[in-house]
């Protein structure tokens, strides 16, 4: 095909593009995945029985705030990295801020607790399944975000994949927090983080392969 013909064909195909299409495409993928993931959580794990009571306590909101802040920063980052000239900017280093706060809170609790309680605060009663459940609940969101990214134009594929993974992991964690009844900050700092990082690593690996365009 001649390039002049191509240009004519493309120019004839132009339709108005609404502003913020990138954010909406990503948001759609995220929301679709979150709906599936929530359904899986409710049907498979079940909402914690004492949710109403737990929602009046600090630890529930601590977990909620940790996952939500990572998710919000992750969304800000992926909205930039989905563009060819996208740079993380202020969101780049900022995504580590919730982790820093969480680790500080965990350390504070650990040092303030009697020695024989410390192991219990780190391992809780569900350390064997916590990270695994987060990865499973993140999967539908991960798929939704990657599907959205494939229609966009990331050029740093490993980084974009990693951030999409972290965002999916954080959103999956947010959903998991409605089931999980752990309340110690050290547990959250270790096992929630591990789940999110695992999904992020998966995203970095798959991003290189599946986000090419």
């Amino acid at each position, binding site marked *: 095909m001649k390039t002049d013909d*191509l*240009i004519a064909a493309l120019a*004839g195909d*132009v339709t108005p593009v609404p502003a913020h299409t990138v954010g909406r495409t990503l948001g759609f993928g995220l929301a679709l995945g979150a709906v599936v993931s929530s359904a899986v959580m409710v049907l498979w794990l079940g909402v914690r029985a004492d949710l109403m009571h737990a929602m009046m306590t600090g630890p529930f909101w601590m977990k909620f705030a940790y996952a939500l802040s990572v998710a919000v920063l992750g969304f800000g980052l992926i909205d930039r990295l989905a563009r060819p000239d996208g740079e993380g900017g202020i969101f780049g280093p900022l995504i580590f801020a919730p982790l820093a706060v969480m680790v500080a809170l965990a350390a504070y609790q650990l040092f303030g607790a009697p020695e024989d309680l410390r192991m219990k605060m780190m391992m809780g009663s569900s350390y064997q399944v916590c990270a695994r459940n987060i990865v499973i609940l993140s999967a539908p969101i991960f798929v939704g975000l990657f599907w959205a990214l494939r*229609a966009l*134009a990331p050029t740093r594929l490993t980084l974009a994949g990693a951030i999409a993974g972290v965002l999916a992991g954080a959103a999956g964690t947010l959903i998991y927090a409605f089931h999980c009844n752990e309340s110690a900050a050290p547990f959250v700092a270790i096992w929630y983080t591990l789940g999110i990082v695992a999904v992020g690593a998966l995203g970095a690996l798959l991003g290189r392969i599946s986000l090419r365009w």
Partner: protein
Amino acid sequence: MSDAWRCNLYKGSGEIELEGFGLIAAEAELKALMLRSLAGDGTAYATLLRRLNGHLRAYYLRRLGPGRAADAEDLLQETLIAMHARRSTYDPTRPFTAWVHAIARYKLIDHYRRTKRLAEDSIDDPDLLFGSEDSRAAEAQIDVDRLLRRLPERTRRLIQDVKIEGLSTAEAAERHAMSESAVKVGVHRGLKSLSAKLEGDGS
């Protein structure tokens, strides 16, 4: 498109520099066209694509080097299609030239990656490396030359003209100031003598 609009290569700044007019003037004009295109203005979009076409062709031609014009054209078309399909990823608060450059560069790197893999594939194939017919043809050529040199000068010329260069008997007759039948006889004898020498060599 005048030369003044040619891309002046990527310099690591994340932007395409333009000779003469400067990046700022190009940025302002191209960005205005892009914003109208995103609003659905087909005329502005056609103008924009033609402008980008000139910039991108120069960019790829310089990057791929001389003799790769066909590759540059393929890459150019692929880039225009990618830009069209993903034009929603342009953020109007950022420079348009940086967006174009990022896509052009991504497609160039992708091209390098693909062609590098192709080159590796062919080197990895033993058939391609050892099954070459070209060297055998070259060796055969050397043998024929060696044999021909053993014929009398006049007969050798006749065979070269008729059997190798492909002249007609009439043309060869004219070139050597001989009759056509003399040429035919000369060639026939020459070939016969050649095959006798070949058989002699083979034993």
